[in-house]
């Protein structure tokens, strides 16, 4: 069982002062094995904070990130799964699932994590899963109105990944979960 935190689009300090207190109290060091971050942190303080939660931190560059050295895309293997990471402003039209699927094919990954729209999405198609963890601070987005703060926790266990999405709605943290299974040739999924 490997826990992977997918988080991004915090936009601190341009659009938000800090993570919501309820999220901060949930994100405790030592519980998560990997963090994959879609980008737009934007400052070093946020990077250091994420690093303190988990040393295995993977970030791709968002268009407002202070650190220009983050890569445009990143791939990594966790257990049986290949994961791809990209902020998403590079994929036009923004938020378009078919275009994101193309990126997924290009990176040849089972799970593509990307952001930019600040809206949580978990979309399954024949070749794999596209996940958007949304904005962890609920930051303003020109694309999405009424953004709720959200992040995603993936539990990777063998050929199965359970995706937990945490959303802050009206001051309360709501959790939802989605199951994905991968087999050698085809994928099936069941939603809860």
């Amino acid at each position, binding site marked *: 069982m490997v826990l992977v935190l997918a988080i991004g689009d915090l936009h*601190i*300090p341009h*659009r938000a*002062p800090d993570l919501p207190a309820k999220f901060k109290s949930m994100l405790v060091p030592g519980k998560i094995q990997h963090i994959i971050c879609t980008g737009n942190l934007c400052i070093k303080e946020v990077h250091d904070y994420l690093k303190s939660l988990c040393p295995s931190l993977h970030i791709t560059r968002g*268009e407002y990130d202070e650190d220009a050295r983050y890569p445009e895309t990143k791939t990594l293997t966790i257990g049986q799964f290949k994961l791809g990471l990209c902020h998403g402003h*590079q994929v036009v*039209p923004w938020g378009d699932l078919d275009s994101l699927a193309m990126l997924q*094919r*290009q990176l*040849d990954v089972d799970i593509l994590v990307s952001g930019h729209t600040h809206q949580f999405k978990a979309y399954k198609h024949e070749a794999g899963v596209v996940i958007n963890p949304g904005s962890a601070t609920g930051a303003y987005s020109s694309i999405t109105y009424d953004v709720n703060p959200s992040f995603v926790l993936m539990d990777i266990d063998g050929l199965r990944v359970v995706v937990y999405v945490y959303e802050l709605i009206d001051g309360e943290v709501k959790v939802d979960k989605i199951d994905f299974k991968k087999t050698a040739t085809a994928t099936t999924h069941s939603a809860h």
Partner: protein
Amino acid sequence: MMIPDGIEDEDKWLTAGIAGLQQNAFYMHRALDTNNLKDALKYSAQMLSELRTSRLSPHKYYELYMRAFDELRKLEMFFREETKRGCSTIELYELVQHAGNILPRLYLLCTVGSVYIKSKEAPAKDVLKDLVEMCRGIQHPVRGLFLRSYLSQVTKDKLPDIGSEYEGDADTVMDALEFVLQNFTEMNKLWVRMQHQGPAREKDKREKERNELRDLVGKNLHVLSQIEGVDLEMYRDTVLPRVLEQVVNCKDELAQYYLMDCIIQVFPDEYHLQTLEILLSACPQLQPAVDIKTMLSRLMERLSNYAASSAEVLPEFFHVEAFAKLSNAIGQVIEAQVDMPIVGAVTLYSSLLTFSLHVHPDRLDYVDQILGACVGKLSGKGKLEDSKATKQIVTLLSAPLEKYNDIETVLKLSNYPRFMEYLDDGTNKVMANVIIQSILKNKTCISTADKVEALFELIKGLIKDLDENLDDEFDEEDFNEEQSSVARLIQMLYNDDPEEMLKIICTVKKHILSGGTKRLPFTVPPLIFNSLKLVRNLQGQDESVSGDESSANPKKLFQLLNQTIEALSTVPASELALRLYLQCAEAANDSDLEPVAYEFFTQAYILYEEEISDSKAQVTAIHLIIGTLQRMHIFGVENRDTLTHKATGYSAKLLKKPDQCRAVYACSHLFWVEDHENNKDGERVLFCLKRALRIANAAQQMANATRGSSGSVMLFIEILNKYLYFFEKGNSHITLDSIQGLIELITTEMQSETVTPDPAADAFFASTLRYIQFQKDKGGAVAEKYEPIK
């Protein structure tokens, strides 16, 4: 290493003294074992003679004294046995007075006295009175202090206190008090006398020795505090006045400071509260050199803690008007001590402030009063140079913030901002940061323009350069952190009411635009996004509401936004400005303001053409432009065409061929917008894709020419995927043949020997083919579409 002669000698004398003492003790024990009272007395007197020495410093004398003390305990036990065996205590009392020298005589007398009291053959008060008087025989300070200390030690559990077995008649507690007070008075006199003995040049040495002895004197006060019969009334009417009388009259600086402190530490806070006036009135009577401010600070600290310990004690504070008394006392002290350094005065006010916050948290006027008195002391002095003083001022100013956790309360204190002008720039920043961190930590939302104005006035040290010549001390990391804090702060300035929010935005804009080029990249973005949020809120409102010129409406906000982003050109921060212009364009699109949106796009394009020359930056910028433009629904045909034409032009002119290719095929989406039917121009889409193909071909040829082998087929595979995208969306201009042709082209190239193998491209092609197969397997209309593809 050279040991100073004096100390070496002292060690010798001490060793000799101890030897003598031990030898006589040995004989004394022998006598005790054989019940030989006469010899016991003889040898004990000889033993005690060692304490007659003048040669030892207090520290060393103490060592000798402790050994004698232990031996005397055994002697006392023997005396007690003797009285049981028939020798009366009075007889013993007489016998010991035959000792030749007065000091041993008195030690023995005290020892017997202890037994005498315990035997109850005489009232305790009589024996005690006798002993305390007799000890006057020793006027040598060190010897006298230790002797009286011995007296105090052996009698402290035998005082005629209420409830003790030695309780006497009606005035019994007074008797106990008299004894202790007299012993205390005499000890203090001896102690003070030490100050004046010996040559002037040895003053430091004497003061050091006096300090070593101070606890002997202080112990008496401790004994007083332990007497059960001393209640508040007795403390107020007898104990405190008598002690203070001695303290004031001795006119000795060292004693006064130590004893006042002792009183404060030893007696309960409840008593201090009720005798505040008496205690404070003694202060002006003390020697000028006594550190009254430290003493008062400690008193206030104790009382603050007492107040904090339980809510039930608070009414007492109000009843005795503690605040007024302390406030007056401090005022008097500061007035009297003209040369008191600033840090001293600030510390005093700081302690008073802490006191006030604990005892009278709701009295903001008290807080303001204290701040006013303190800043009044600073006036006329210009910027403070003493770093201790400035640190203390920061502590002073932080106290209300920590107590109230609410900047709005602190902003009500009229005297608070006045401190800022006396702080140097560094401290100004420190204080500003303290304020900001308090706001962020408590998540306080500041909701009116007036409060924002007051706040920004307070923190102006961070908002702009107060001094022009600061470059030498510039630390980039610190600066970035500070400005990020300011940026976060801007997020906390908010009001639901659009009119007020607009006022807030204008106030913030005014302040940050005077912040200088280094600050703008930090402070402009949060203001922009706050404004965009307001625009979005206004979209929900009816247009008819905003008939008045001055009311908040999107047009006004967009003007404001434009002006603010323009300021970034002075930095210059072109990439940031471009992003912000595009954000505004999208917002204008959502507000149905076509000219405004067009203007923002124009600004963005100008920046792209004139300011952004770095290749990587251009690539990102062009994708942002394309992505934003693709979402615009507000533009009429002409405007749209102009902007699209420009965007495709920029794409084709990027430096590197692969970048060109990708940007151009991204542009294909500009001609195919899902929402509106008339925006799907299949032909122009294909045109873009073909153009991208040509660029990809050119890239291959270039690679062939310069490196000898063709580059990767990655670009072709990407374009193939785009073909499939539009094919599936129903673009009739994308034919099956073109797709088939592309697949064959790629397959051939990959098998060709001149092409560099690229595992990523292979994987991409494989997954693309898999995708095509998935579509075929889906069945239905989709499968039919895909079926012909091989």
